[in-house]
């Protein structure tokens, strides 16, 4: 056990030894990371504005936001789970199940009921994820992975593998009502992001989420109801995944069990991590997730506009993800 914990503090000019310089350099890198993805995001935005005429138009930007509304909603929920020290790999599956269930309910019922049923289902799935991973102490990575198979299987069973077509105008209105010339899908995402942002940064529950993810034992011994906090984070994540599914179904008028799936799960997770939320828990923020998700969206959009090979897009996304996680790891490499 080291007798004095290594630490980063402001230094006096007297200490300019090599290791002091090295850790100062690391401290700079760490503080750069606090700003993190914002700088590349702004740089990419400016580059695209210059390189592509159609990029900086209201139609294109609103279009991007509309397409990303479900990813933003799901990402915000996932961020809570990640900070609380878990991971939710079932969001893509929940999204798919919520879509088809909402679609089926909507066939003979009002759109509002379809929405409520879908969100309730998301909450139940989240509660199961939470209880399994806290009370039964099954690692959430495995627990939610297993859940994702169960959920997708159930969704396929419900639809017998078919598409569910949405004909009800009421349901379409969920995402496509225009308010201040912007569709409600975008407004819903904005509201979810703002509310969860406030919950995380300004409430006791939010504080408990950070603490639980930062140190389970210290939190428990301080009287933080760690298990309850984690279950609640999973419930929110489940509801967000379901809401994402309903919004997209309302946008594209069809629902399918395999819609979303692991591709969506990992794209959202990539956005959260690129934004700078730690996969180890205890650190992160909703605004980071917003920037991270939109950054990935900009890459896709920009490359489409500039007609760059979509395969190259994937490679670049992978490199960016590695860089983001790498920057996260560097401050921890100090001995």
């Amino acid at each position, binding site marked *: 056990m080291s007798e004095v914990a290594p630490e980063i503090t402001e230094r006096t000019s007297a200490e300019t030894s090599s290791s002091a310089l090295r850790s100062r350099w690391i401290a700079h890198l760490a503080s750069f990371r606090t700003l993190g993805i914002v700088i590349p995001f702004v740089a990419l935005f400016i580059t695209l504005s210059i390189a592509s005429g159609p990029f900086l138009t209201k139609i294109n930007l609103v279009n991007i936001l509309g397409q990303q509304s479900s990813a933003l909603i799901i990402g915000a929920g996932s961020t809570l789970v990640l900070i609380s020290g878990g991971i939710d790999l079932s969001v893509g599956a929940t999204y798919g199940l919520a879509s088809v269930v909402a679609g089926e309910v909507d066939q003979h019922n009002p759109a509002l009921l379809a929405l409520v049923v879908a969100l309730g289902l998301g909450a139940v799935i989240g509660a199961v994820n939470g209880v399994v991973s806290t009370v039964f102490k099954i690692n959430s990575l495995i627990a939610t992975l297993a859940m994702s198979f169960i959920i997708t299987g159930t969704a396929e069973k419900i639809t017998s593998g078919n598409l569910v077509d949405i004909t009800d105008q009421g349901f379409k209105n969920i995402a496509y009502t225009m308010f201040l010339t912007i569709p409600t899908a975008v407004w819903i995402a904005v509201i979810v992001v703002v509310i969860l942002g406030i919950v995380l940064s300004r409430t006791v529950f939010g504080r408990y989420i950070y603490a639980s993810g930062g*140190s389970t034992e210290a939190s428990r011994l301080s009287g933080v109801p760690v298990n309850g906090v984690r279950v609640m984070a999973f419930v929110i994540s489940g509801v967000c995944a379901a809401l994402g599914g309903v919004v997209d179904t309302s946008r594209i008028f069809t629902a399918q069990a395999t819609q979303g799936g692991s591709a969506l799960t990992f794209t959202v997770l990539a956005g959260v991590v690129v934004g700078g939320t730690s996969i180890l828990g205890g650190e992160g923020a909703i605004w980071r997730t917003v920037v991270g998700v939109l950054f990935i969206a900009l890459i896709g959009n920009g490359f489409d506009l500039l007609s760059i090979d979509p395969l190259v897009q994937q490679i670049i996304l992978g490199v960016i993800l590695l860089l983001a996680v790498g920057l996260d790891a560097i401050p921890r490499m100090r001995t």
Partner: protein
Amino acid sequence: MATLTAPGADAPLIELTSIGKWFGGVHAVSDVSVRIEPGTIHAIVGENGAGKSTLGKVLSGSLRPDQGEVRLNGEVQHFHSPRDALSAGIATIAQEIALVPGMTVAQNVFLGIEARRAGFVRRQAMRRRTRALSREAEFDLPPDQVVSRMRLPDQQKTEILRAIARQASTIVMDEPTAALGRIDAEKLHTVIRKLRDGGRTVVLISHFLDEVLALADTVTVLRDGKHVRTAPAAQETEQSLIEAMLGHSMQQLYPEVRRPAEDSPVVLDIENLSAPGVRNISLRVRAGEIVGLAGLVGAGRSELAMAIYGATRKQGGEAFIGAKRATIKSPRQARRAGLFMVPESRKEQGLVAMRSVRENVNLANVAQHATLGVLRGRAERRATARALEQTDVRGGSPELPVSSLSGGNQQKVMFARGMLCGPQILVADEPTRGVDIGSRQSIYGLIKAQAEAGVGIVIISSDLEEVLGLAHRVVVMRAGTMVAEYSGPEMTPENVLSAAMLGTTAKDARNTE
């Protein structure tokens, strides 16, 4: 083949000159020069935080000094890793065991230096050599035993065999007996003497002064990272070492705490409590009273604290908390009933390292600063400032991560958290472990202030002086039970130690584990 006692394991003369090492603005050691003669047992003593382990790590290559040099036989060395030091003949046996748990003794002993033939590991040869080494050291370690299934002393022996197999001529041991029982510790002492008699140098970092005086040829004393003196062990006594380590006599360090009135209310009443690691404990603590829990490592002191706090499940008996005699099942209930615990390990059980000082200070009482769950930032900041001032936390803004504070200030943050809860009972487990002298005094001041304000206090410490210096009454634990209780003139180190090591009755002594 390397053997334990074979002479001519030519240990070099080791010279450390003006060694300095800083961790974020705080020196761990500064300008320390020590000469370690070959073929001797050289002990390094000092309080927690005096720089013993840092110096040991510099010697063994796991830390690079910011200043000064390490010379072997006059030649300047540049160790970049323990591996470099090992190739110069310096092996380390650290506080934490560094073996591969799933491998056998033989595999661990020869890890990285496996005997090979045509690319294949010669298992039989390795087994044979391990058995020979082990027999010679009188270790009696079966070469095919998997390390994770062995007891700690046997794991340590495996580490020693590993050092010998690597032909190390100098072995640095950092608190090798801290986790051992008395018999195992004595066996290890025999091994250490054998190593010396075989011509090796042993650098022994230890806070057991009796051990140091019995084993070492030379003793170096460090205080606050500075070299106090290096002298033949024969010239030292426990008293002289303690005074050198502290820089003053013991009396000044501990404040005199006013005794509570005879009729002050009982705030903690433990009746026949049994829980994991503790059996049949009965203990009462009055408001304003400081009760010390003494005992060896593993005697059940921390386990008792965790059981009282509701952090582990009670198996029998009860602990009544506060004037309302609440019974509790979780730390959350304990905190609400008026009990606060400063846990044994602030890193693992106390602080959320990456979160800010402010969040850490308010972790237990954050709900007090909220309306319908929404935090009132200003109320929280004000409470934080007040608590930090009261507990004398120094360094940086409350918005910096708590890990940026020194060990002493981190510990004070734990007390700040406790004070904001306004407890009736404060349980402090190792309140000054790894804390510098200045912070220790602040912490003692805080404990005194809390006691005199009517808080019942339970202090657990492996530092016997600390327990005796602070407590009104000392309870001694051994093997999970209470074996003795002392107060007044009976509260002497001799009484407490013999109770802790031998128990009061032979029956208790036999019931270990």
